[in-house]
Each structure stands twice: as C-alpha cells, then as structure tokens.
C-alpha cells in the first residue's frame, strides 16, 4: 500500500497497518478501516472518524495498488505532506511530514507522534 501523510491541524496519534487494513489510534481509541474491497477506479466519499478526528483523507486504487492519504497533527511552523511512500516506511514514533524551515513563523514547531508532541 502506498501512503501519503498530510500535515493537518487535527489527526490520529498514529496508524498501524496489516495488509490493506489500516487502524487509526487517537487518545486511546482505535478505529479499523478495511480497504481490501475498495475497487479499481472507485470514488472515495469519506470514512468515519476516530475519536472525533478524520483519519482517512483519500483512497484510490490504481493498477491494483491501494493509495491512501493519511494525516499527522502539526502545530506552529510550516509543514508539508510526506510524499508517497510504502506503508512499511511509516514510523509511528517519528515526524513523517516535512517541515519547511525557509519561512518565518511564530511559536514552537511541533508534530504529534505515538510518543506525544515532538518539537521539530
């Protein structure tokens, strides 16, 4: 499965993967999303939230491969999506999104991981 992690103001704390099933975890609550039946050319219209936050931003299947946009919560600072990567490269304890350090901002830059807030 290919994933792209978006930098967002609200997000699950982390995700785990098992084949084409994604589990989103947020503040002790988990939600399982089985995407194995998502069809080629199908239109993603939304998915249920986990503990009040949106976990899946986009799903598509291209050439048989599942492509999913997830998200990671960020605070101050300028942040960009991770870019497409294999789900095996996802690290729940790390900042998967990218920080743009070239632009000024106020406050302390951080992103949330399974371990809590991590300052960039």
């Amino acid at each position, binding site marked *: 499965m290919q994933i792209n992690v978006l930098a*967002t*103001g609200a997000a699950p704390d982390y995700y785990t993967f098992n084949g084409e099933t994604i589990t989103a975890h947020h503040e002790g609550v988990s939600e399982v999303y089985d995407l194995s039946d998502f069809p080629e050319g199908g239109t993603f219209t939304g998915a249920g939230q986990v503990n009040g936050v949106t976990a899946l931003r986009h799903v598509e299947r291209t050439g048989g491969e599942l492509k999913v946009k997830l998200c990671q919560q*960020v605070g101050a*600072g300028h942040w960009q999506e991770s870019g497409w990567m294999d789900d095996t490269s996802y690290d729940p304890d790390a900042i998967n999104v990218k920080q743009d350090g070239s632009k000024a901002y106020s*406050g302390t830059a951080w992103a949330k991981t399974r371990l809590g807030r991590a300052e960039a």
Partner: protein
Amino acid sequence: MPITLTGATGVDSPGFTENGDPIVESGSNSDGEWTRWADGTQSIINHNKIVNVFVSVGSIKVQWLFPSPFINELSYAVVASYRARFNSDEPTTFAGRSAGVSTEAAGGIGLGLYSSSSISISCHWVAGSSGAGFAAGDKMHVSIMATGRWK
C-alpha cells in the same frame, strides 16, 4: 475637564502581546495557513480549495478541515470566492468540456455545517443559465478564509 493624551498614538492601550509579540503562533499545513493573536483572534485561509465531490447537476461540494481549529462553531465567520487556476498544471475546472464556463453560471458558493474544525463548501449551478450543469469530475477552485476566536 481637560483630556490628557498619552503614548505615541495619543491613547494608552493594554496592547495584547505574549512575550512581547502580538502573534502567539502561526504556520501552514496541508489544509491552509493560520495565525493566532494574543488577543484571541485567529485567521485561517486556503488560497486554493478544490471543490470536487459531485452531488448532482445542480451542485458539487467538499469539506474544508481547518488548518487550526476555532474555540467553537459559533466563534467565526467565513468568506469565499471563486478563483482562477494558479498553475497551468492544475486540474481543468470542468472535466471533459472546454474551459470558459463562467462562474456566474456556476452560481454562488454555499457555506454550511459549521463545526469548530471544519465547514462544508458547495458550488451551485444557476438554473436556466448556459450549460448543462455540473458533471462528475468537475472541479471549482475557491479561495476561502475565516476569522474568529481561538480562545
């Protein structure tokens, strides 16, 4: 009684700052840009929100998840307008048809389903205008901003 004016502007004001800075936090992420001021004001903006979920020939919609949430759903106001594509490689506004359908035909932008962290944006086709209405794959580009309270 004579009035005494003080300060550079002639008026003393408490001057909302935090650690001497009127801006507490700012940044940007996949959902837009945001700034939080010490007096509790927050502004957020997305210069290019794409509305692309087909509902019917009469409308398309999308949900804007805010780059930073407000304190509650009653604490902010929103404005939005159509905009042209920034770059030539952005998706064609009307899939499968030549460009040139006017925003007047597309009609107004609807804003609703307010929550503290998101809002629904919809674009509505004007009945009786030129064209056949929206089709699956159509996209409208919207600039949208909201101002309100973060605390």
